[in-house]
């Protein structure tokens, strides 16, 4: 098996090498931020959660036992830190419009003549809003799979779940996102229109 490219940096960082720790954190920062961004649904919470996650990684580094890949461990620590941060902030209003310094939502203002640019921003807001409506356990499974590209076994390790539960949560999370992003979209097996009564499908109210 190929050596984990993080191993040498982890060893050096644990030995007190500041440059190695900096390099290690830099390697993983953007992925942690992306994970927190999709879990949090807004940039302000994502920044705080990312900060907490990085600090948790630094503090937990002496206890990293190497039984899993470092990146898997990072995802585990970061996911827990992000979800903890979100629980602490659960009384805040639900995410809506982008915040002032949100590089996702604000960014360069789209050219109003550019439908594509506007659509891109709207898409980002839509996916954040849709993800925010998922239960955290479904949201985490979907984000770890689709954004972080972990396989089911790794996600099971990160979330401390059986692989079968991971598979189910990803599927249910995606199905719910499909309904939220495109309300007219239903699993064809959920509707069986008859040839004599072509009624429109009823709204899906599954959780």
């Amino acid at each position, binding site marked *: 098996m190929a*050596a984990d*490219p993080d191993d*040498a*940096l982890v060893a*050096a*960082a*644990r*030995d*007190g*090498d*500041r*440059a*190695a*720790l*900096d*390099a290690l*954190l*830099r*390697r993983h*920062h*953007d*992925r942690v*931020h992306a994970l927190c961004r*999709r879990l949090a649904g807004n940039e302000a919470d994502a920044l705080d959660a*990312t*900060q907490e996650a*990085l*600090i948790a*990684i*630094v*503090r937990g580094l*002496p206890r990293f036992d190497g039984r899993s890949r470092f990146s898997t461990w990072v995802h585990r620590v970061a996911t827990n830190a992000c979800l903890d941060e979100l629980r602490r902030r659960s009384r805040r209003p639900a995410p809506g419009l982008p915040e002032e310094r949100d*590089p996702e939502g604000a960014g360069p203002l789209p050219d109003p003549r*550019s439908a*594509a*640019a506007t659509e*891109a921003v709207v898409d*980002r807001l839509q996916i954040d809003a*849709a993800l925010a409506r998922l239960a955290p356990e479904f949201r985490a499974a*979907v984000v770890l*799979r*689709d*954004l*972080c*590209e972990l*396989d*089911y076994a790794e996600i099971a390790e990160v979330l401390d779940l059986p692989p079968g539960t991971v*598979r189910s949560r*990803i*599927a*249910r999370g*995606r*199905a719910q*996102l*499909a309904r939220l*992003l*495109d309300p007219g979209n239903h*699993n*064809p*097996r959920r509707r069986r229109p008859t040839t004599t009564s072509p009624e429109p499908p009823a709204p899906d109210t599954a959780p």
Partner: protein
Amino acid sequence: MTDAPLPPDAADELASAYLDGEADAAERARVEADPDLQARVEVLARVRAAVQRPVLVDPARREAALTAALDAATRPGGVLAGGRERTVVALAPGRWSAPSPRWRYLAVAAAVAVAALAVPLLSQLGDSDDEADTASVALDDQAETFGSAGGEALDATEREEAAPAADDAAGGAASSPAFAAGELGAFDDLDGLAGAARERVDASTAPTTTTGATGAEGVTSTTLAGPCAGQLDLPAGTDVLLDATATLEGEPVVVVVHRAPGADPQLVVARLDGCLRVVDQPL
């Protein structure tokens, strides 16, 4: 014999697992034989593409987060509490036998940049063999430095310095078909990048194009050769039509266009740093 219809949740679970390559052989066969399930896979694939949309990072926020984390490490009990500071040491050959493809790519790009600068300089220096030899050695040393150290052994500063060198090489070496083909340019939005990728694929797949090694010139390679080689999984049997670098919303990215037999081209965009896939959609 046909299978009994699945309950909706079971159908979603089967389609989802199929999409992720986590279905077993019997499940794959069932999905491939059922148009409803295939349609469901397509719906879930669109959901996946939406979740994969790029997440942008404010560089100033990134630095602030890293600084705060390093500060936390210096507090009592932290890994840096002893106050020792060293540079990142060279990595043991056994664990770091070869630089990653991404860094090999950057190393070659940097060497081309140095060469592009060295040629006019040497012509100004005239025909002095001694001076030319010196420049040549320097060039070799530069290539050796990048090639032997490997990207993972570079510290953060070196990485930041290497990346612009590669960009310069890609942007400035118009006479180098490999890098001219590999650099799509900078784009403010995904549509612009997709359009450039489409043009490049259309141009390179014209009957008069030549073949090369990377796919950037209309090659029907089945593997990636660029910075994310070995780090981006593509479906088995797919043809790589484009494997290039670009900048999307200020972020360096790798742009891959691939096509499975009988299917339409698919656009994949991944961050250059870490090869995290941020876009996976039809071109």
